[in-house]
C-alpha cells in the first residue's frame, strides 16, 4: 500500500504544481501566459512584447473557431513586439480554449472582451492604451463590442482588417466580386474550369440565404488563390514545426474548437445582429486595412464603415497584392502601416 500511496502523492503534487501562480511582467519585454475564465470557458492569453510603450495590440482573431497565435510569425516577433505589447487571446470555442460549458449566446463574446480589457488593465496598469486588431470574424466582434453602451471608452483605437461587420452585405459583395473577377479571369483564359464553376454557383444561388454562406466562403478562399496578383505566404515545414513548439500550440483543441464553432453555427446570430446602422456611435480613431483581392470580406465592407462610422479620425489602406489576410500576403508593408498608425494615436 505504501507504494500506491507514494505514487498517488507524486501524481497529486505534479497536478498541484502545474497550477501555481505565475509572475506578470510589469515593465520591459513581456512574455506572459495566463487564462481568463468566463462563462465556463478558460481562454488562453499570451502577452508578448514591449510594455514600456504603454500600448497593447489586442488581437481579435478570425473564425469563428480560429486562433490568435497564427498571427505571431517571425516578422511580428522581431518588429511589432519590439514596439508594442501584443495580446494573443483565443476566443471561446477557439484555439486553445477549453471547458465543459456548452455553446453560449453570441453576447458571451462581448462579455469576454470586456473582462479581458479589465484584466489587462488590472495586471499591466490602468494607463495602458489598448488597440483592437480585428480580423475577419474578429471584425464582426470588435464593432459589436464598440457599439454597445460606453464600451468604446475602454479602447483607444480600432484596426479593422478584412472584417465581417455586416454578414448580409458581406455575402452579397462576395457574390458580386466572385462574378466580376470570375468573368474577367475566364476571358483571360486563366483557371477557366474552376472559375466557371464559381460563377455558375454565384449566378444561380440565392446567395443572401444563410445556407449558401459556407459554399460562398469556400469559393471566396479558393478564388483568392487563383488571382495572379496575390502574393501567397510560403512557410517551410521547419518554420511550421518551430512555430508549433515555440508557442505550445494545443493542436487537437484547435481543430475540435474550429469544428465545434462550425457545426454549431456560432456565426449564425451575426446574420441578425445589426451593426452598420449603429456604427455612428463609434467615435474612436479607426484604420481600415483591406486586401484588394479579399473575396472573403470584400473591400466594399470598408466603404460601409466609412459611410456610417461616427469617428472623424478614419484612415484606410488597400494592399494591392493581398487577399483576406494582408498581414500574411504583404507582412512588411502591412505591419509598417499598423506600427506607424499606432505610434501616432
Amino acid at each position, binding site marked *: 500500500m505504501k507504494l500506491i500511496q507514494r505514487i498517488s502523492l*507524486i501524481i497529486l503534487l505534479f497536478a498541484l504544481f502545474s*497550477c501555481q501562480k505565475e509572475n506578470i511582467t510589469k515593465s520591459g519585454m513581456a512574455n506572459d*501566459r495566463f487564462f481568463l*475564465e468566463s462563462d465556463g470557458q478558460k481562454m488562453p492569453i499570451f502577452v508578448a512584447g514591449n510594455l514600456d510603450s504603454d500600448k497593447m495590440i489586442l488581437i481579435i482573431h478570425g473564425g469563428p473557431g480560429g486562433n490568435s497565435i497564427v498571427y505571431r510569425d517571425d516578422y511580428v516577433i522581431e518588429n511589432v513586439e519590439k514596439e508594442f505589447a501584443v495580446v494573443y487571446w483565443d476566443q471561446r470555442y477557439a484555439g486553445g480554449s477549453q471547458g465543459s460549458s456548452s455553446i453560449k449566446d453570441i453576447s458571451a463574446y462581448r462579455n469576454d472582451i470586456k473582462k479581458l480589457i479589465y*484584466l489587462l488593465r488590472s495586471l499591466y496598469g490602468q494607463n495602458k492604451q489598448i488597440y483592437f486588431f480585428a480580423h475577419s470574424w474578429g471584425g464582426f466582434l470588435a464593432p459589436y463590442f464598440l457599439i454597445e453602451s460606453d464600451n468604446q471608452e475602454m479602447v483607444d483605437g480600432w484596426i479593422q482588417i478584412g472584417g465581417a461587420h455586416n454578414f448580409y452585405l458581406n455575402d452579397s459583395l462576395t457574390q458580386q466580386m466572385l462574378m466580376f473577377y470570375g468573368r474577367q479571369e475566364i476571358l483571360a483564359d486563366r483557371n477557366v474550369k474552376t472559375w466557371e464553376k464559381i460563377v455558375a454557383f454565384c449566378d444561380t444561388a440565392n446567395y443572401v440565404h444563410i445556407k449558401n454562406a459556407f459554399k460562398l466562403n469556400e469559393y471566396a478562399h479558393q478564388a483568392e488563390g487563383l488571382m495572379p496578383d496575390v502574393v501567397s505566404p510560403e512557410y517551410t515545414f521547419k518554420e511550421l514545426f518551430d512555430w508549433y513548439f515555440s508557442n505550445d500550440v494545443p493542436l487537437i483543441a484547435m481543430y*475540435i474548437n474550429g469544428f*465545434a464553432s462550425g457545426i454549431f453555427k456560432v456565426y449564425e446570430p451575426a446574420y441578425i445582429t445589426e451593426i452598420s446602422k449603429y456604427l455612428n456611435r463609434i467615435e474612436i480613431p479607426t484604420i481600415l486595412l483591406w486586401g484588394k483581392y479579399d473575396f472573403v470580406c470584400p473591400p466594399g465592407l470598408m466603404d460601409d464603415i466609412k459611410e456610417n462610422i461616427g469617428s472623424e479620425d478614419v484612415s484606410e489602406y488597400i494592399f494591392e497584392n493581398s487577399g483576406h489576410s494582408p498581414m500574411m500576403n504583404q507582412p512588411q508593408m502591412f505591419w509598417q502601416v499598423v506600427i506607424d498608425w499606432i505610434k501616432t494615436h
Partner: protein
Amino acid sequence: MKKYIIVILLSFFMINADASVLANDYQPVTAIRASYVSALLSPGGKIGLEYPYKYREIEKYKRDKTIIHYKERYIVISLGSYYQQGFHTNLMLQAEWTFRKQRSRGMYFDYSPVIGLSRTFIDGTTYSVDDSGNVSVVKYAGDYYGILGASISLGYNFGMRSNRPIKMFLKPSLLVLFPYSNMIYPRPTIELGLSYSFKK
C-alpha cells in the same frame, strides 16, 4: 516527473518476490500496474489495479502439438495523469473491462472498453473578472469531463515461464473527454508499463 516514473518502473525488475506464478498451475491473479503514459507529446503516468474475475483454459491440437492459451477477463481500475504544457494537467480515474488472451509462452493480447472521470487543472494562472471589473485568481481552475474510450495492449507475462510475477505491456488507447465545448475531445495515449502480482 519522467525520472520518478522510470525509477518506479525499474524498481519492479529488482523485486524478487516469494510468490510465483507457474505455467503448469497457472491462474490469473490480482496485480498492481504502473506505466509511463504519453498523450501525443505530453508525458504522464498511471497506476492501477487489475482484478481477474474469470478465466478459462483453452486447449487446441495443432500439428500433433497441444497448444494452451487462456481467455481471461479483468476489471482494471487506474488513476492516471498527463501534462500538456500551456494547456492542462489531466487527472483521470478510469475503469476498464479487459478481455485478454494469454498464451502459455507468455505473450498476451487484450482489448478493453474504458469509462472514467477526468479533472483537468489549467496550466497557468487563471483569472475571473466580475461585471464590475474586479479580478480574482481562480484556484485549481479546470473542468470535470466524462471519459469513454477503448484500448488494446500487447504484453508479456514473465510469470508464465519463470517465478517473476511481472507483466510488461504496451498499450495504445483512444480516450474521449466530454462534454468539451458541446463536443468531445479525443485524446490518443500510449502506455508502456509493468504489472506486479503480490500473490499467487
